[in-house]
């Protein structure tokens, strides 16, 4: 059977706030267990939540960032269920009236097209703590540092048809939220977690099939793989005449399979009702406009500007823009050297390669934008050949100084002096009479090939410092003069 995949995504985004959504505890990742949990986070008797305004502002920022409608009056609700890492026995969330309502997010696809994805809603909620199974041999520990961390849950309509679309959406979302500065988007630390709702239907039909939900997938790669294996699993069941069970599943990256979670958790009746300890959030037009005024240039606009203002290709712009730090680095380089295309090439090529090998983010690059601009300037003015430039780049990466310092100290300056080059050419011609004779005897096509031998000899003798264009010109003049 020819199956069509239908998917909707729910992303839990950890908002970058100083303190928790309902308490004054810090939200830093990696603290000693339970050191960042106060009586509110612990659900101690008599404790009450107080809403963190920064979380509200981040949520509104997000809503404006995707052009969604902001809920004028949103309400917190209690989602009731028992779990050891849920201190109060309920999670404070927004069920009936979310802070961000419907919107459309245009996702740039790798082929340069835009895929409109409908956002159903985004709502604020508190994170739960963590159960720790690997510290005590026969017991489970509870770490409540994460309990009360502000989350924005972003829900889409079932608009995805391929794993590629889902990943493109997640990447674009990641890019957007880091641009907006509302989340660090660190997937490895759980700042962005994805639930995938997935079902199959016969291609050409409209009705939705029974879906499963794959919970808490925390990397782009795993999202892609989880979708593939789950689709295969569902297709096998359906092809065999079976039926899909609506359930929550987990992706096991090691085995590359999805597994059913305990059905008890699926059968939860969360008994949502309005949280009486918090007042509704009322957001007026003034507040929205004040937040709008703080919005930075967003990825789509930046991509367009890179193409129109810097003359970059769509392809280069699409590669530079998603990572906000990379785009900023690019602009800083261009600011200094006014050579956009070489700047893009160096950043996307040698610099990205070096950063990836060293596993360093571009914002922590050992080589500054100014340094890279200095290198590009020396290429542009003919001081460095591209070959020499790579040597200088490597030396700068090692921390040996700026381009000019390295050029100076290593004497790497390109030889562009015609007199010096003519001498080198004359020496090579004199030293290789056989090759000269071959050259003279050869036809036009072969001559091109044979001239490479002389270039190589001169480059070797000049330790690569000969200006290749000038050398070529002088060499051909001399050789042609022999015939």
């Amino acid at each position, binding site marked *: 059977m020819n199956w069509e995949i239908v998917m909707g995504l729910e992303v839990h985004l950890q908002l970058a706030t100083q303190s928790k959504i309902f308490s004054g505890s810090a939200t830093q990742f990696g603290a000693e267990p339970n050191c960042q949990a106060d009586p509110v986070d612990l659900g101690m008797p008599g404790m009450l939540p*107080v809403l963190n305004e920064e979380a509200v502002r981040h949520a509104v920022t997000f809503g404006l960032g995707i052009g969604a409608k902001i809920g004028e009056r949103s309400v917190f609700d209690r989602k009731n269920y028992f779990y050891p890492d849920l201190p109060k026995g309920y999670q404070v969330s927004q069920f009936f009236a979310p802070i961000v309502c419907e919107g459309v997010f245009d996702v740039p696809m790798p082929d340069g097209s835009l895929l409109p994805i409908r956002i159903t809603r985004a709502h604020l909620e508190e994170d739960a703590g963590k159960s720790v199974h690997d510290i005590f041999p026969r017991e489970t520990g509870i770490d409540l540092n994460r309990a009360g961390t502000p989350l924005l849950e972003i829900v889409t309509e079932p608009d995805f048809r391929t794993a590629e679309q889902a990943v493109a959406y997640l990447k674009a979302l990641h890019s957007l939220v880091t641009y907006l500065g509302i989340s660090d988007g660190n997937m490895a630390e759980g700042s962005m977690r994805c639930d995938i709702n997935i079902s199959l239907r016969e291609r050409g039909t409209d009705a939705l099939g029974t879906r499963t939900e794959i919970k808490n997938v925390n990397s782009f790669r795993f999202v892609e793989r989880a979708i593939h294996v789950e689709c295969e699993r569902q297709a096998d069941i359906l092809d065999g005449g079976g039926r899909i069970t609506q359930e929550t599943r987990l992706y096991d990256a090691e085995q590359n399979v999805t597994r059913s979670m305990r059905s008890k958790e699926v059968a939860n009746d969360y008994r949502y009702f309005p949280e009486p300890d918090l007042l509704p959030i009322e957001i007026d037009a003034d507040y929205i406009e004040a937040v709008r005024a703080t919005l930075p240039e967003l990825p789509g606009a930046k991509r367009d500007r890179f193409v129109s203002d810097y003359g970059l290709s769509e392809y280069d712009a699409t590669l530079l823009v998603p990572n906000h730090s990379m785009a900023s680095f690019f602009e800083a380089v261009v600011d200094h050297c006014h050579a956009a295309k070489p700047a893009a090439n160096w950043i996307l090529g040698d610099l990205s390669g070096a950063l990836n090998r060293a596993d360093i983010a571009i914002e922590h690059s050992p080589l500054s934008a100014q340094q890279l601009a200095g290198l590009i300037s020396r290429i542009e003015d003919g001081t460095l050949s591209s070959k020499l430039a790579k040597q200088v780049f490597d030396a700068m990466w090692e921390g040996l100084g700026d381009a000019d310092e390295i050029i100076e100290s290593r004497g790497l300056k390109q030889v562009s002096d015609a007199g010096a080059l003519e001498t080198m050419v004359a020496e090579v011609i004199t030293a290789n009479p056989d090759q000269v004779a071959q050259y003279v005897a050869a036809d036009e096509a072969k001559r091109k090939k044979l001239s490479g031998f002389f270039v190589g000899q001169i480059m070797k003798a000049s330790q690569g410092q000969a200006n290749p264009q000038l050398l070529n010109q002088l060499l051909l003049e001399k050789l042609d003069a022999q015939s």
Partner: protein
Amino acid sequence: MPDSDVLSASVSTLQRMLSARTISSEELVNTYLGQIEAENEALNAVITLCREQALTDARAADHILSRGEGNPLTGIPLLHKDIFCTQGVRTTCGSHMLETFEPAYDATVVAKLKAAGTVTLGKCNMDEFAMGSSNETSYFGAVKNPWDLNCVPGGSSGGSAAALAAGFAPLVTGTDTGGSIRQPASLCGITGLKPTYGRVSRLGIIAFASSLDQAGPMARSAEDCAHMLTAMSGIDAGDSTSADRAVPDFAAALNGEIEGLRIGIPREYFNEALNPDVQERIMAALSLLEKAGARLIDIDLPHTHYAIATYYVIAPAEASANLARYDGVRFGHRCDAPIDLEDLYLRSRSEGFGEEVQRRILVGTYALSSGFYDAYFNKAQQVRRIIAEDFHRAFETVDVIAGPSAPNVAFQRGAKQQDPVAMYMEDIYTLAVNLAGLPGLSTPAGLINGMPVGLQLIGKAFDETTILNTAHRLQQDTDWHTIRPNFGAFQS
């Protein structure tokens, strides 16, 4: 002054004595502690005594007083209902679940009263998690009414009311979710005020039903309540539902002047549930107010009869969530040797909670369940608004609404224990006030066969002053609030 006089003196009298140094706070505290130690066994009103800390605090208060400083409550002893978290002092909420729970923090009310100079003597018994109208649901045993030891003191602030009536303290705190200050105040012959929702911070008060809970003062007179209310009130950054309203000096506003005051008498409060003798006492009290210049106006609160059903959906629903945190994981009772997580939850909660608490958790869970939410919780919220509108409409033509605090005087212990609905009827006149978030107080209105009756006065939102002043006038014109039970130090 003989002990019995000290034990029945008003806060103003005690403050005059303290300021004049005719008595020290330490002596006062010793007198009250002595009274509690001698008589509590008969009443079971106090479950934790803070003798050493109280004496230390009293000496600190004396130091302040000796410099001629202090305020109206400096050095005045008081007891807290055991629903208020007290730092380092166990806070049980009347439950086995919290039998050994020692909070690391004070409730805002506790901190404010401490800052006002009061001295905490100990913690009062109460219905478990404030769920009850007779103080029979406490894990620490039933509280007895000092007016008749076979009778209940009312609930859930029954320990507080009985302690005050018995002369254990001149001031006690209570909380009122559906009548838990006013009904026991009525049954024990004292004055008790439930403030407007939001007037007093709920931070550090163990939650029963968050949208209804409100703490308030219980004392010998409206004036004493006024002093205490001033100290307890005010916006709290730690409670988002606390109101940003100026706190008047409630005591200074008491002038007893009620000329032209329009008092609404809701027909629905004088129904077949009301004991005719209680009705007669209420009418007598109202005529006295009329004589003092008030106008009595018949009014309608047409949706009054929906209050009990509405309350018993909303309060248990909120409670079912508020009490979910008692799971045996982090604090509170944990069962022995749980075999797995479900066993831990099941046994910890079954062992830790009493029958009435379990009943309300079940009712509340049911009311919120998928498929029943609209029929119960949502409907109840709608009716709640309609009930509140009844009051708003009535207050367009009257300044105060008056009626009985409870349908009867105190009943015999055990009389309603097997019949939860009969017990719920105890709060028939008080629940609607919580649903509407309004202030209400109960002030003594005489005795029936030696048992106290309470007149309830309901005010407009944030107008505690008018109901306090009305009660104050009645207390100037009568001696009902000064009659003491024939118990302990007051025994004739």
